[in-house]
């Protein structure tokens, strides 16, 4: 038996037992997201395809699955979809700029030994892949926050139809701020967990502070964690403005 199969079966059973039909749909969407990711990797494997273009396409498909497939198409999910895509594109440009400056492209020292038998000249831009990695890592959290802002905003507006656009935006900000702490925590610990091996490796080598701060791996980790945090914060104003714009215009 394979560990991954056992874990997947256990997860599926747990989701269905606790969530019933919703649980089954959640498991299915997890699986669909995985297929979309594999499809994206397949497209990027051809150097003629631009990784940046394909990561944007992947983001659009993934947000469609997570928003429309699970919640149906309505003003709320539409607003969440727009805010996710706008935040993603903005964040992508920022990451491309920062990762170009920081030169975090390619593999870290700890990985290079393992790669000695492989050809590294594969014609795919690793600078762009660095941005792809950061963007994909935040997509789940960003769709989650945007739907968690837009749907209560609609409730607020339905209960107070006389609200001005400005007041509604403020309500959106308040909702978003309450989510900020737990969402950033979710991402930070996930990153801590996956970087644990690297952190132990750093400590084992007893690097000086200067060595650590200037090393490619550490800079790449910091950039990933902090850009993910920035993305989570940025989606708050974007989702609030877009939802307020869509709702109040409809009147």
């Amino acid at each position, binding site marked *: 038996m394979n560990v991954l199969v056992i874990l997947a079966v256990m997860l599926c059973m747990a989701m269905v037992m606790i969530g019933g039909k919703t649980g089954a749909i959640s498991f299915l969407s997890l699986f669909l997201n995985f297929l979309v990711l594999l499809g994206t990797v397949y497209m990027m494997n051809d150097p003629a395809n631009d990784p940046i273009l394909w990561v944007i396409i992947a983001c659009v498909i993934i947000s469609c699955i997570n928003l429309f497939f699970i919640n149906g198409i309505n003003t709320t999910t539409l607003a969440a979809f727009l805010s996710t895509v706008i935040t993603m594109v903005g964040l992508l440009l920022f990451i491309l700029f920062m990762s170009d400056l920081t030169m975090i492209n390619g593999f870290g020292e700890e990985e290079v030994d393992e790669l000695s038998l492989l050809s590294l000249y594969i014609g795919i831009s690793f600078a762009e892949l660095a941005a792809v990695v950061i963007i994909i890592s935040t997509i789940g959290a960003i769709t989650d926050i945007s739907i968690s802002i837009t749907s209560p905003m609609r409730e607020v507006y339905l209960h107070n139809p006389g609200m001005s656009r400005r007041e509604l935006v403020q309500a959106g900000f308040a909702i978003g701020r309450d989510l900020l702490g737990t969402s950033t925590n979710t991402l930070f610990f996930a990153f801590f967990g996956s970087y644990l091996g690297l952190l132990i490796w750093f400590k*084992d080598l007893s690097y000086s502070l200067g060595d650590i701060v200037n090393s490619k791996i550490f800079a790449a980790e910091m950039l990933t964690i902090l850009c993910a945090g920035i993305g989570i914060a940025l989606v708050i104003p974007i989702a609030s403005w877009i939802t307020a714009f869509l709702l109040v215009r409809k009147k």
Partner: protein
Amino acid sequence: MKKRLISASPLTLFLYAVLLFSFLGSVYFIQHNHGFYDQPIAKITEATVEETQELSDIYGNDDVLYTQHLEATVQNGEYKRRTLELDNEFSLSGANDHEYKTGQDLFVFIDSASADEAALSGTIDNVKRDQYVLAITWIFVLVLLVIGKKQGFYSIVSLALNAVILSYALDIYIRTENANLLLIASVSVFLFTVTSLLLVNGLNEKTYAAIVSTMLGVFAALLLAAFAIWTSGGNGLNYEEMQFLSRPYEVVFMAGLFIGSLGAVMDVGITMSASIFTLYEKNPDISIEAMKTSGIEIGKDIMGTMANILFFVYISGSIPMLLLYLSNGATWPFSFSITLSLEIARALAGGLGIVLTIPIGIFTSIFFIKRKRAAQ
């Protein structure tokens, strides 16, 4: 603008002043810290590509290899202000090389034999990245403060605090012989949970219920992962990507799984306890059954998205390695198992933690509410 500043409380003004001061101070320091490094640093003044060579390997990958000649000025140490000549090779794809540009700072080794010549010669060691790491940190802090205000501040404090706890815990692990990483991780997980939840929620029963359910939830995830590995004899997990470690990587993997699922489990734990306590506060006579039903309804809505968040964080990091294997003629199943097996196992185990925390959170909250009722 002026009015707003005056209306702000003295404490807020003081905090802004501290922020501004540390911002200016750190930016000034990082621009002028060359003297603090023992290794010579050189600033590139001229970069020219001298040779271009097209490459193609046996798998049909095409790439271009460039040879670059750099002129740089040494910024520190005994050769300060002298000119240095460097050579660099880089490829179009840049998997393990970089194209350098004018104005960048590089850590270099200087050949001592060239000390008497007009221009020094040497080799490139690393890029000086500290100023960019600082810049992104400040952008993060400012964005979170401007958008998140108080909550943004708490997020930053909680990140910093947890990073310090983790670093300290790893120091203990490295320094102690035969240290048990899982034990150290368990203690840290407890500290992470307590600090993060207290920062977000303050001292109250809601927080206690969330802490208890989070701890039970992550331990459940860890136990189930251990059970899955035990029944299958570890079949399907490939530790190739952790081979740089000179430590037992199975344990490091388990500890990473444990810490990695914590944030998501904490999120579910606090959501469950907060919503059940809200139900109770709105209607103190609410029946246990009603609380259970509402709790399950809330849990259903969040479990999918939370599992998704973990999934994307874990899988994304493997994309470059997956592409490299695929481009080197490896089959999909092989590349998949070498680069993705650990990440998928982590994501699935984290997902289990999330789902199990829903009933755990419901029962823990109900337990605390029952105790409260009995005390009244």
